[in-house]
């Protein structure tokens, strides 16, 4: 399968933060969710992908091209959404469109009108009067109006109400009916990922933790609940992290089948949310509450 984004052994350090030997790939035709806590390097990675930052070392290629030689070619094919307002506030959406339109050779006014109508966006109101949700819809509209093959979004759903989050996911679902589209977005609202993400990349403290298919996560990971007496040196090895309380234990495993073999009916096995996986992986080992 073709990789649309490829980061290889990328290093980037700032004061008090470091992206360490970071490698990842994003596959064409799929939605990849990028998860991790606050300040672990999600935005930095997205900036590197957009060439807003250059790596200290390592290589970045988008559509198999590098930014040194093909910057404009690459950016023609990307639609982007950031979590803050990146438009001129004193302009209206129509005025903003006129400015951005000229940058893209593939701009499609019909598509722009389609999304404006669908999102019920006001064309002649100043952008600074837009609510957070409208702002996001406006960004998405601009990002989708030039037939971009890759959509890169930094925390697109943060601060949005649940109704609009669903609408937003619907738009992405419809976009993905076309197999040439690729979506990459960071989020810490992990419920966004449950219904749409094909791949999940987990970053923590500037390091790549895992890249997995969402179906693989469903198959491998499980939350296991049971009595503390079941835990001993041997059985503990099966868990990534264990939370113990006076009433029993709860743990995350990445080897669901093995757990079923070992414990059988003695434990309760549940499907973990992505949030569970993030939480337990970050906690590590075992702890007591």
């Amino acid at each position, binding site marked *: 399968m073709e990789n649309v984004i490829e980061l290889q052994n990328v290093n980037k350090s700032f004061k008090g933060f470091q992206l360490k030997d970071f490698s990842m790939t994003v596959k064409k035709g*799929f939605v990849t969710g990028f998860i991790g806590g606050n300040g672990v390097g999600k935005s930095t990675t997205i900036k590197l992908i957009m060439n807003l930052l250059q790596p200290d070392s390592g290589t970045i290629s988008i559509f198999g091209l590098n930014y040194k030689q093909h910057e404009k070619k690459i950016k023609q094919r990307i639609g982007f959404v950031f979590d803050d307002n990146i438009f001129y506030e004193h302009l209206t959406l129509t005025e903003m469109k006129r400015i951005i339109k000229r940058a893209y050779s593939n701009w499609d006014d019909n598509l722009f009108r389609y999304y404006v109508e669908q999102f019920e966006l006001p064309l002649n109101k100043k952008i600074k009067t837009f609510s957070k949700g409208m702002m996001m819809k406006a960004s998405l509209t601009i990002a989708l109006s030039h037939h971009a093959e890759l959509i890169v979004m930094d925390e697109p759903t943060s601060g949005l109400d649940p109704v609009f989050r669903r609408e937003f*996911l619907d738009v992405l*679902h419809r976009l993905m009916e076309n*197999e040439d589209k690729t979506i990459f977005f960071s989020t810490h609202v992990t419920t966004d990922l449950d219904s749409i993400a094909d*791949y999940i990349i987990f970053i923590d403290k500037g390091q790549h933790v895992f890249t997995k298919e969402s179906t693989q996560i*469903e198959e491998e990971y499980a939350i296991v609940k049971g009595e503390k007496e079941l835990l001993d040196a041997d059985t503990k090895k099966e868990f990534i992290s264990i939370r113990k309380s006076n009433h029993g234990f709860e743990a995350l495993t990445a080897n669901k089948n093995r757990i079923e073999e070992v414990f059988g009916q003695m434990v309760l096995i549940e499907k973990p949310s992505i949030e569970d996986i993030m939480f337990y992986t970050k906690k590590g080992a075992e702890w007591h509450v």
Partner: protein
Amino acid sequence: MQIIISNNSKEPIYEQIYAQIKTHILKGELQVGQPLPSMRQLAKDLDISVITTKRAYEELEKNGFIYSIVGKGSFVSEQNNEMIKERKMQVIEEQLTAAIQNSKEIGVSRTELIELLTMLYREEE
């Protein structure tokens, strides 16, 4: 084609889809050669990720329920013996369930029913 998935089930979503499409095929609701919705269309309709439907279709293909033609989509396969057997089993299950329900209504016990079944089975031999 009706597919109902539960997000809260312990069973992975792709398995739920696999099982339900399989049932549709075995019951004959989907006929040989009939096209299935595209993976991407189905993913959109069910509000799930593309990779989930992809995985379900791959399993269906691996087990011979469907075949796919690049650029055209996926279609219901001609069923082999194994499958016909499985399909018959499904019919048997349904008929037996009906028999059990009828028995319960008129108070025929499990033992009585088994006896009746054994007797009828011998007669057919």
